[in-house]
């Protein structure tokens, strides 16, 4: 397992986001250390996905600042953040339906890895990297298939493989296990742990508490757009505010 170094990778200060009159996020402060496995939980509508969307550039936060490896991210659009090393998987898998699995992975290699200075993968190197990525997530035998031929868990794995193909430093796995069976959850967890061992910092946004608790080294809890707990998982879930949010008064 990659040990968290304590060195800050991502720093969020006073982040806020509104949709009209609705306050989705307010005053979010968060620091993610290199190599960390952070669990992000909260009831539906608490702002987890909005936070990920703001950090990845899909949405723009109205207040607050975000720095990644010391560089300010405010004003950068999604693909520019991907080029810097932030990657994400989507809550609902969004494969490129018209392409084979290999081409699904070639997109991030062509547009992110090859766009970085001093990086140029040749066609052969790209094919080898695609094969390696598919093997890592157990989809090597389906390389030439289309996403429509995949099962739900395979689709989730493809989603992760595509995010990893950008060679990220920080990966947001947004509900990567939703709707999966126990054994399938174990498969995805194994993939995520392996990625963390390879040095990728992972933020796991999830409702499945057993998965979050076994995966995370730190747990952040959001409720109604506010951070109410941040600390070791066992400590965070015993926080009275968290118990109140999940179990009621």
């Amino acid at each position, binding site marked *: 397992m990659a040990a968290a170094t304590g060195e800050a990778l991502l720093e969020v200060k006073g982040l806020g986001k509104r949709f009209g009159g609705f306050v989705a996020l307010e005053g979010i402060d968060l620091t993610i250390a290199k190599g960390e496995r952070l669990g992000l939980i909260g009831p539906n509508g608490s702002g987890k996905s909005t936070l990920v969307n703001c950090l*990845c*550039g*899909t949405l723009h936060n109205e207040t607050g600042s975000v720095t990644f490896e010391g560089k300010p991210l405010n004003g950068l*659009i*999604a*693909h520019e953040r*991907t*080029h810097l090393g932030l*990657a*994400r998987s*989507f809550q609902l898998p*969004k*494969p*490129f*339906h*018209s*392409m084979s699995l290999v*081409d699904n992975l*070639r*997109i*991030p290699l*062509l*547009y*992110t890895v090859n*766009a970085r200075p001093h990086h140029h993968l040749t066609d052969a190197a790209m094919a080898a990297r695609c094969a390696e990525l598919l093997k890592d997530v157990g989809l090597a035998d389906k390389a030439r298939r289309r996403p429509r031929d995949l099962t739900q868990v395979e689709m989730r794995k493809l989603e992760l493989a*595509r*995010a990893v*193909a*950008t060679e990220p430093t920080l990966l947001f796995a947004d509900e990567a296990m939703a709707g999966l069976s126990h054994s399938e959850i174990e498969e995805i967890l194994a993939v995520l742990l392996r990625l963390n061992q390879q040095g990728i910092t992972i933020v796991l946004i999830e409702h499945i508490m057993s998965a979050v608790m076994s995966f995370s080294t730190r747990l952040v809890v959001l409720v109604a757009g506010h951070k109410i707990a941040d600390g070791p998982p066992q400590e965070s879930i015993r926080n009275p505010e968290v118990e109140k949010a999940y179990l009621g008064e």
Partner: protein
Amino acid sequence: MRLPAFWLCAIAVGAAFIVLTRVLVANEYFYFAGYVVLQYIVLSEAWNILGGYTGYTNFGTGAFFAMGAYSSVVLHKLPAALHGAFGWTVLPVPLPLMILVGGIVSGIVGLGTGYLSLRLRGIFFAIATLALAIVVQTLITNWDFVGGSRGIYIIRPALAPISGTYIQYLFSLMTVLAVGTVGIARSIEGSRLGLGFASIRDDELAAEASGVPTLRLKLIATTLSGALMGMAGAPLPYYVTYLDPTSSFNLAYAVNAVAMPVIGGMTSWVGPVIGAILLGTIQQVATVTISSALNLLIVGLLLIFFVIIAPNGLIGLVQSWRRLKET
């Protein structure tokens, strides 16, 4: 087939087509009808770069096409206008240069349209392009220099720059344009740019998250698509010899440019070519044998048929049949 080999083959086929038609066909009407079919190959292939590869439906084909045509009118009138105003003697602008200028003008408008409207998606983008066609038509209708609503007569040069009649010359130019457009579409399809376009069509959010600069790519698509449409329109004044806003902005251009790739298949360069040849030829035959008024009806019926029976066009139909055979 590798790209350089494809280009060589396309150029060889185009050259052979021009030479063989000159040798074998004497009937002028063949060239009149063939010009229209070739023009639709360019238009549908150009439309497909934005609509098929990138997934953005453009109903403004008529605007880009007519801008190409009217930029030729301006260049046609320019020598006389400059002579009248300043006494300058300017040589007539050759048609290939007019085609180039038409492409540049429509390409710039495509870039501008893209910049203003590409934040819109789906039906909203389609409506914006339709609005563009109306705006451009209104401007042309009120611009006296190019004939305004009265239209303008264009007298073709007495002699074609190469051997044969002027209509044969136009036919040859349109063949070159069609070969070039098909070559460009084929080059895009297998390239990094083509994969980027396809990722936008499949899922724009996922494309951005994968590092694809979606806005930049969409601007490339609108510019290229607009430029090729403008190039297709540039020789029109010399083909029809009388140009007015009603005919140059005809709905048929927009409808055909959408229908031909849909019928042929939108995910490959082959689809628009098949669609244009099929639909273009049927329309030409219907014009001669029944009435040109039936053309849009034929397109409509075929569109309904294909949307229901083969939504991925003829190419999609063949691909599904092959997959079935394999399994």
